[in-house]
């Protein structure tokens, strides 16, 4: 069956054979074909996904989200928060004002956490890359597990009733109310395009660089080396991938193409999923920022719940596949 990506395959083959005059079965040819196939494909998907998400996001401005989630009960609220989080990626620098605004707007702590987990984890860059590099099934699986983790993590924190470990000032700040403005369709699309340009402008060098590194691995790194270190035989591959993912914050665009090349040589996909989640959801800068509003025990619970959940996802996925 011809896939929608057939033109990209043709383009990559054409580059290697006609432009460089190489045989795609040679090492250099294989590397170049990998590069010229993945770069245009991933960039296209990034534009499409960011535009769709950026446009949908105009219906889910934080004010509107707060209104939807305010007063919601445990579990149902967590499901709603995690679902909304799919469409509203945000910069970690917004985590604190959002946290304060939600709690003061009557959104329960556990529900707020579901949102804080899902929103950065299921973001357009990660989804576009997973789709482009691993296929839509893996991208959907990632979204599914990410949402499940956000629901479970937020529900656990909600059930433990940890409000006492929120920094006391949070409850005392008077919070102003912003407006939700009505937007015409044209403005929503313009906003979608604006956010697409912003995201693509920021991440394209990482994508190109990451795919170049992946292309090198694809052509030159022997498969048995990868299998020995990251393959199914190494029971610690998942936790190690998670630990490696933490400092790579915001570079999901640069590191995912490398994992694709590793996966092609035998690294299991569950390990890839765990790694991606660690990169997006367990970022050191976000933890440092959240320390402003969370007392250390709550921050510790949050990190522990997330780490355990992400590792569990990796093992589970590797076991069922």
């Amino acid at each position, binding site marked *: 069956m011809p896939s929608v990506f057939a033109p990209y395959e043709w383009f990559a083959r054409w580059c290697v054979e006609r432009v460089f005059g190489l045989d795609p079965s040679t090492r250099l040819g294989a590397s170049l074909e990998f590069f010229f196939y993945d770069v245009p494909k991933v960039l296209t998907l990034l534009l499409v996904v960011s535009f769709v998400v950026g446009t949908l996001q105009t219906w889910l401005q934080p004010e509107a989200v707060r209104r939807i989630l305010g007063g919601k009960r445990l579990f149902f609220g967590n499901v709603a928060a995690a679902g909304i989080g799919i469409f509203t990626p*945000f910069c970690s620098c917004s985590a*604190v004002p*959002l946290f304060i605004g939600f709690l003061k707007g009557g959104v329960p702590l556990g529900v707020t956490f579901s949102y804080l987990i899902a929103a950065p984890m299921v973001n357009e860059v990660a989804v576009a890359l997973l789709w482009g590099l691993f296929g839509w099934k893996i991208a959907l699986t990632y979204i599914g597990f990410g949402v499940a983790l956000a629901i479970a993590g937020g529900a656990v924190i909600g059930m433990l009733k940890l409000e006492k470990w929120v920094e006391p000032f949070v409850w005392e700040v008077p919070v102003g109310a912003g407006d939700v403005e009505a937007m015409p369709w044209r403005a929503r699309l313009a906003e979608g395009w604006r956010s697409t340009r912003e995201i693509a402008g920021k991440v394209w060098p990482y994508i190109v660089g990451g795919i170049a590194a992946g292309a090198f691995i694809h052509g030159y790194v022997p498969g048995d080396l990868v299998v020995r270190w990251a393959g199914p035989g190494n029971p610690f591959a998942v936790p190690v991938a998670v630990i490696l993912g933490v400092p790579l914050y915001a570079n999901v665009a640069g590191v995912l193409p490398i994992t694709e090349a590793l996966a092609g040589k035998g690294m299991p996909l569950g390990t890839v999923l765990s790694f991606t989640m660690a990169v997006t959801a367990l970022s050191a800068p976000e933890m440092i920022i959240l320390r402003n509003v969370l007392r250390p025990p709550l921050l510790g619970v949050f990190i522990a719940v997330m780490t355990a959940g992400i590792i569990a996802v990796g093992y589970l996925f590797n076991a069922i596949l």
Partner: protein
Amino acid sequence: MKIQILGSGCAKCNQLRESAEAAARELGISYEIEKITDFREIARMGALVTPALAIDGKLKLVGKVATPDEIKPLLRQS
């Protein structure tokens, strides 16, 4: 008039500040810039996402790096 930039000081806040200053200069408005980095103050002013822009204490834009052309009408209204 007082143009206030709300945010913890990330790169986006600086871009927003530059846009706002460019807009004010082009309109020939006399202005002062205030950077608000304290989370309590940001929350009090009603911003849920940063960077945000306020004029004389009133929130005008949240969560995006606006262009000078987008900021000009806001300055004119105020």
